[in-house]
């Protein structure tokens, strides 16, 4: 089955079993390794991608669902200004991640920062409920997200 979709800004076509997991397609066919194979059940968040702008675990997305959709992986996202906000915010808060869960934590953080909703600490914590990795204190992550919100706001206002 030929499936067309936009991957990191480029239109691509893949011939695939429609039930194949998106994470396998990204890693094995496109060598996009920032999405990790952790639990393969959508619980750990290590394989996170942006599907039409929303953070989704790619291990539970069968490729037939991405027909004509836009997929952005961490490799592409990390070239954006939005990523710079998250990175700076995390660094200022002393967030130190193991690397395996980067995709999940960074893309979820970006979803929070990009959201129009002003979230409480508990709401921010709840947004990370799909990240199982035990490498970071959630308090650091929340502080990092709050920093990133301020940095993003300043950057947008400066423009």
């Amino acid at each position, binding site marked *: 089955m030929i499936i067309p979709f936009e991957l990191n800004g480029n239109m691509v076509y893949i011939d695939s079993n429609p039930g194949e997991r998106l994470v396998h397609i990204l890693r094995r066919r496109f060598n996009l390794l920032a999405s990790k194979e952790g639990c393969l059940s959508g619980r750990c968040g290590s394989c996170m991608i942006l599907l039409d702008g929303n953070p989704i675990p790619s291990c539970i997305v069968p490729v037939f669902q991405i027909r004509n959709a836009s997929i952005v992986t961490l490799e592409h996202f990390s070239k954006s200004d939005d990523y710079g906000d998250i990175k700076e915010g995390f660094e200022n808060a002393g967030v*130190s991640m193991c690397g395996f869960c980067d995709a999940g934590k960074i893309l979820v953080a970006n979803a929070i920062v990009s959201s129009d909703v002003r979230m409480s600490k508990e709401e921010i914590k709840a947004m990370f409920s799909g990240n199982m990795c035990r490498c*970071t204190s*959630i308090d650091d992550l929340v502080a990092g997200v709050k920093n990133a919100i301020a940095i993003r706001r300043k950057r947008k206002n400066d423009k």
Partner: protein
Amino acid sequence: MNEGDIRFFSDLEFPDQYHGVLIRSSIQRGHLVDIKPPKLPDGYHLYTATDIPGENRITAMGTSIPIFAPYEIQYYGEPLGILVGPDLDTVLELVSEVLIETETLEPYEFGEIFASSQVVGKRILISGDPDASFADVASVYESTSEIGPQDHYYAEPLGVNVSIANGKLEVYTATQWPFHVRTAVSAVLDLDPSDIVVFPMAIGEAMDGKIWFPSLLAAQASLAAVLCKKPVKIAFSRQEDFLFSVKSAPSQIRYRTSIASDGSIDAMIVRILINAGAYCPLIDEIVDRITTAATGLYMIRSYRVETYALRTNLPPMGALSGWGEGHAIFALETHIASIISQRGLSPLEWKLMNMAVLGQKTPIVTASSGNYRYDELFSAICTSSDYLRKYTAYEYLNHKRKGYRDGPLRGIGLACGFQGNGFSGKHPGTSTYSVEITMETGGQVHIRCGSNSESMRQIIRAIAANSLGIEESLIRFTGTDTESMPQSGPDTLSSKTTILAPLIEKCCATIQRQRFRDPLPITVKKTWKPSLKEASFMSLTPAACAVEIELDPATYEACIRGIWLSCDAGLLYNKHVALTAVKKAIPVALSKMTAEQITIRDGKIAPKQSVQYEVLTPSMQPECEVTFLESGEQARGIGSLAINLIPAAYAIALAQITGRQITGIPVDAETLYSFFESEATEK
């Protein structure tokens, strides 16, 4: 945090790579009669014990484990061989068609009654005559705690990638002990260690589940790579990892305590049984630690602690962070809390009265090392948590309560304990640790220390920059494999904090002395060797913890209102890193206490209810406050404090609400429901 800086073994692919899948036993105990593979297509191979050129075993800390079972099968899922080939799906299909002929034997069970041949570890500590004390004293209290096996649940499932390049065997794996991987592969393939290079890959939070097991996988993959002359990768799926990797060793701990009329502990008899599974290379250290931890930080006039580690036909067992200390602290603290409650005493006053102090000697506190600032530890907890007021109020409310639907169900638990740092020093297999620092002519500093943990590197960078008076940006870490990094033992039990940090300081001090009289570059190397000392560990981090809980009377779910932890961690090189190290372990401790449960049926590991292993996510971390006592003493480990203490404090808080001692881990809503149902029936 630059993408691409951190490499995981699962991200590595070599050209022309083969995939390896293990053939496993389908019986718990018995004999292997024959392995009949299907007709293998070209390029696909099956290797078994008979193909091993060297020793069919890896040895860690005195325990040997077969690479492939040659004849005797000791547990369900034991590797019998490896099937390799270029296409993973084909390999998996071929593995499912392999016929294994076996003879079944009755498995060894775990329980009070066991055969002497099952005992793989034994320690007995005796002081005074505890039996005589029991004859004289009327106040005797007994309890038994049972803690089941739990998964280490690290982010990346286990695996290894092996290739042959430049005439050397290159092994890529996430391991806490790279030099053990090299030793293991060398013995199995009968190769000189210099022909093997191990590249430790990014490891994340290993939770002590990657100490020796990666060596076994490395030996299996290396055998296949050498025989088929192709790069070979073994990558466990999460399911395979869960079913066949090591679990924390389950234990049963029974306490019998007599209390003197003044409230002090007159005598204590402790009997500990550890289920060591079919193989448990870490068992000697686990037995040592759980035995010495069994009497905690308390002064006891006479005691006897008997620990037996029993061989059973369960998969290999390992050590969760704490190596059994958490089990002992949970059992002891809940037992003590029950005694205090039955005698109507104040937990805080009782603890302060019975803590071992300087000059007294217990299994864990040596005569020279007992000054642990308990007053300050408890004071920090009581101030931050308002413990005394809450404890008194909840005692009153819970006693006055007419039923479990009457009023808020709240409790607060206080526990004290410790984290032992470094190995007990009794096991030669734990190896040496070295650090080498070079100051270049341009002022750059290169550090080779065998640590690939980013948090440890932050600490090391801070120490070196501070000691040498230079910018942290001038510091680089070199040595990324066993050829270029200095010899080092396993990265566990906070050994890197307690060993490497002082070595770095010493190296820097030497460079500082030399740099103004000798020309650069200057290279200084310092080495630490294990020694048998009076102390049980290299150092001990005492701590106290309080947990406050409110129980929902409708769902029996426990809501944590707060966690407070104080510790005497010695010198803090980087307070933020220290705070993160403690805090990130809190959800792990709560997950172990409330969610993670494995049921074993006929020797097969299974989650509690479904195929999913229930784990609390870090986002469920409740509000917590951590206090470090100011100190200039040598840095001590802190990473296991939460896992060692929080389950005990949590269980004590629940006991205050339910009026029953919590004697098992995990404790879930179902258990609490049964408590209240029986309370209702009694009334």
